[in-house]
């Protein structure tokens, strides 16, 4: 069988490394962008300063959740 030359190995390896790098960047970008796109539009003063409306309505803000969160951090 034809032996792969050192140069070809190097080319293959470089391609592989760039591949892993690109996959990693895509994964990380997807996470960050997804969270920002879904989350940022909902953040505003009323979200941060008003308490949740109760139950599982998912409405109004997170003011009461921050009170325990701040001393803990």
């Amino acid at each position, binding site marked *: 069988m034809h032996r792969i030359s*050192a140069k070809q190995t190097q080319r293959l390896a470089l391609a*592989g490394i760039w*591949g892993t*790098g690109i996959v*990693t960047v895509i994964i*990380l970008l997807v996470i960050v962008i997804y969270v920002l796109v879904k989350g940022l539009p909902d953040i505003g003063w009323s979200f941060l300063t008003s308490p949740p409306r109760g139950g599982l309505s998912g409405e109004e803000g997170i003011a009461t959740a921050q009170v325990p969160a701040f001393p803990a951090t």
Partner: protein
Amino acid sequence: MKRRYLIDRSSRGVLLICATVSVAVLLAIAVFILKESWPAFRQIGLLDFLLGTEWKPVPVGDESPEYGILAMIVGTVLVTAGALIFAIPLGIGCAILLADAAPQRIRQILRPAVELLVGIPSVVYGLVGLVLIVPVIRQIGGPGLSLAAGVIVLAAMILPTIISISEDSIRAVPKAYREGALALGATNWQTTWRVVLPAARSGIAASIVLGMGRAVGEAMAMVMVIGMATAMPNSPLDPARPMAPGIALETNYASGVHLSALFAIGVVLFLFIVILNSIAILVFKRGARA
């Protein structure tokens, strides 16, 4: 003169107290966990606990409760191994890229991004996994909340850890090694693969051990995406319940033997991590000697 002596003595005393307190706290935690888990080991029996396949801590009707954690042990092993299979090649490849191959400008953008991602809380990974990955897996088959989803989320979670520590250790290899290899006529890749990576081996091993520890102990993200079924998983599309999220899910309402059994899971988890770490260290030490 006298004052310096006093400062010296007293700071030594303070440091000694700090060290004693931290060791004592660790010991106290270990003793407490062992003490709390003792009733469970005695009532259930070590073998029934470790090898039992039924986990029914709150029995329905007049069944007797069952505390077998074999499915949880299998779940932990599978999800950790799966995550490592994806994360190790990706992480080390990316670390080589950042340390050796990438142009300066790309490095300057990527490096801080990776470090930022180490700090993302695991709930956020769980949330993204739940909303993005679980529906995709549901399309392939099964309930979606599954081992496969857990593996993908965990791999993404430990990837930044592996990348940043591996990159540091690759970068810490003395420049003379690289220059020596290049001067002997080796290509860039031969230098990286045969000289730099073996020299950075212990740091890369440390990054993998850290990532593994994070994967084994991860509770929150797993509760969200892995389905938490107590049955033994038969395929990657089945839900599973690893040990750490198994503890997290039930501590709220557990009492008596059930609570004690949760502590016993904690003991098993702890031993698990100790064994995994020792194996990793042994393997890499032996590799270094060869």
